[in-house]
C-alpha cells in the first residue's frame, strides 16, 4: 500500500467519523457506557478480591493466654517450642507488663479503675496457612500438651467465613469478569455491525468500483479503534469521578478495616487498562462486524 493511500485511508476514517454523526455518536456512546460498566465491575471485583484476601490475614493469629503462675522463662521456652511447630510462621511473647502498658495507653480510664494489672502473659501465634488455623488452635486446647495455656483465642468461625468469601469472590468474580468482557465486546460489536449494516450499500458500491477488501476495511478498523480509545477515555473519566465519590463516602463512614486495605491499583492504572481494553474491543468489534459485509461480489 502506498503512503498516499495510507494518508487517504486515515483521512477517510476521519471523514466517516465526522460525517456519520449519529452513527459515530452511537458507537462512541455504546463503547463509553459498556466500558464504564465493565471498568466499574472489574475494579469492584478486583477490590473485593483484595479485601477478601486481606481480611483473613487479620485473623491469622492465635492468642494463647498463659496461666498467671507461669514464669517468664517457661513462657519463653514455650514460645520457642511453638515456633518450631509445623504450620506456625512466627510467635511473639507479649509480657503482661507490655499488655498492661498498651491497655493503659488505649483505655486509661479502665486501667485506672482496675488499679492492678489483671492481664496474663500472652503468646501471639501467627500461622503460615490461614486454612490450617483451626486445626492448630485445636492442638493448643489440649490441656495435657499445653498445661501452661489457660485460654486459646482464635478467630474461629470468622476465619472460615472470610476464607469462603475470598474463594467466592475469586471464582465468581473471575467468571463474572470474563463474562462481562465478552458482553462488552458483544455490545460494541453489535453496534458497529449496525453502523456497517447501514453502510452496506456503500460498501457494495465501493466493491463494484474496484476497491479491495483491505481498502474498504482499513478506514472502518481505524474508526473502531478511534471509538474504542475515545470511549475508553470517557469511561475512565466517569469511573475516576465515581470512584472519588465512593471513596469519599466510605471514608466518611470512618469504619475500621474498610478502606485501609492497600491496593495494587493506583487510579492511573484505570485509564491505561481501559484504553487497552477499548482499543482491543474497538478493533476486534469492527473486524468481526466488517467481515460479515465484505463478502466478495
Amino acid at each position, binding site marked *: *500500500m*502506498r503512503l*498516499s*493511500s495510507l494518508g*487517504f485511508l486515515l483521512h477517510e476514517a476521519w*471523514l*466517516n467519523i465526522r*460525517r*456519520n454523526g449519529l452513527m459515530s455518536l452511537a458507537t462512541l456512546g455504546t463503547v463509553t457506557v459498556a466500558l464504564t460498566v465493565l471498568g466499574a465491575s472489574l475494579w469492584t471485583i478486583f477490590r473485593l478480591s483484595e479485601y477478601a484476601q486481606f481480611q483473613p490475614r487479620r485473623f491469622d493469629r492465635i492468642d494463647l493466654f498463659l496461666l498467671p503462675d507461669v514464669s517468664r522463662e517457661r513462657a519463653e521456652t514455650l514460645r520457642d517450642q511453638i515456633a518450631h511447630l509445623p504450620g506456625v510462621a512466627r510467635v511473639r511473647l507479649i509480657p503482661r507488663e507490655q499488655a498492661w502498658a498498651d491497655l493503659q495507653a488505649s483505655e486509661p480510664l479502665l486501667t485506672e479503675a482496675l488499679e492492678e494489672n489483671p492481664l496474663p502473659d500472652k503468646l501471639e501465634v501467627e500461622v503460615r496457612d490461614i486454612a490450617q488455623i483451626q486445626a492448630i488452635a485445636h492442638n493448643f486446647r489440649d490441656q495435657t500438651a499445653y498445661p501452661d495455656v489457660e485460654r486459646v483465642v482464635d478467630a474461629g468461625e470468622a476465619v472460615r467465613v472470610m476464607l469462603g468469601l475470598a474463594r467466592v469472590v475469586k471464582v465468581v468474580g473471575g467468571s463474572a469478569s470474563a463474562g462481562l468482557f465478552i458482553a462488552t465486546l458483544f455490545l460494541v460489536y453489535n453496534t458497529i455491525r449496525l453502523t456497517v449494516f447501514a453502510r452496506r450499500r*456503500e460498501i457494495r*458500491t*465501493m*466493491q*463494484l*468500483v*474496484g*476497491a*479491495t*477488501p483491505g*481498502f474498504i476495511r482499513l478506514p472502518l478498523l481505524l474508526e473502531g479503534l478511534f471509538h474504542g480509545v475515545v470511549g475508553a477515555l470517557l469511561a475512565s473519566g466517569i469511573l475516576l469521578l465515581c470512584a472519588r465519590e465512593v471513596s469519599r463516602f466510605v471514608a466518611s463512614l470512618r469504619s475500621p478495616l474498610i478502606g485501609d486495605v492497600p491496593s495494587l491499583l493506583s487510579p492511573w492504572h484505570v485509564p491505561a487498562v481501559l484504553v487497552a481494553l477499548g482499543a482491543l474491543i474497538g478493533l476486534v468489534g469492527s473486524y468481526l462486524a466488517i467481515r460479515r459485509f465484505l463478502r*466478495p*461480489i
Partner: protein
Amino acid sequence: MIQLQNVTVNYGNEWIALYQVSLCVNKGEFVFIVGPTGAGKSTLLKLLYREETATQGTVRVAGHDLNHMPSREVPLFRRRLGIVFQDFGLLPNKTVYENVAFALRVTGESSRTIRRKVPHVLEMVGLAHRPDAFPHQLSGGEQQRVAIARALVNDPPLLLADEPTGNLDPDTSLGIVQLLHHINVRGTTVIVATHDHTIVDRMQRRVVALERGRLVRDDQQGAYRPLLMLSEPMRS
C-alpha cells in the same frame, strides 16, 4: 474484448433473466443494448462486471473468464472498467468531487493526478460548479452525471453504462452520448444499455436487442427499432 457463449442467468430457481445469449464485442466497438423494460439489459451488464455470474455458459471479458475468476482478482479487474449504474451508486457521504476521486483512489493514484483529473471530468459532464455538493443535494440528472464522471475518470478500456441518460433532458443526453462517442473514438470499448430511441437512432451504431432475456437482434448500424418495423406505427 467481450465474448458471451450461450449464457443463461437465473434469479432464484425459476426466474430466467437471460437465456442462451451469445455475443461478441471487439475492442473499440460502440454497442447499444436495447429492449423493453425487464428484458435483461442490466443483467447483461452486471455479468460483464461480475456483479452477477452466469448460471450457464461462459463470459469472457478482456481475456478473463469471469466464471472462474478468483475473488481476489475481481477488484483489479473492475478497476479497468468504467461503470455507470442504473441507480447511480453514488456514495452518499462523499461530495461530488470525492465520489469521482474515489475511483482513482482505489487504484492508488497520486493526489496530484487526482487534483488534475477530477475537475477536468466534472467539466466534461457539466458539473464543474458543484464539486462540494453531496448527492442528496443534487437533482436526478446531476446525480446521473456524477455517476458518468466517475466512470470516465480513470480512462477505462471498457465502459459499461446502464441507462446513462434516463434522467437527462434531450440536449444534455445528446451531449453525454457525444462524450461517449468521443471516448470511443479514442479507443475505449463502450457498451450502453438504453431506452433512449432518439439517441440510438441518431448515432447509427451497433444495436443489440434483447427481449424476455433472449437476444433477438444484432445490427451493425442499427436503429432503436428494427428496420422492418420502421414503417409500423407505434402502439397506441
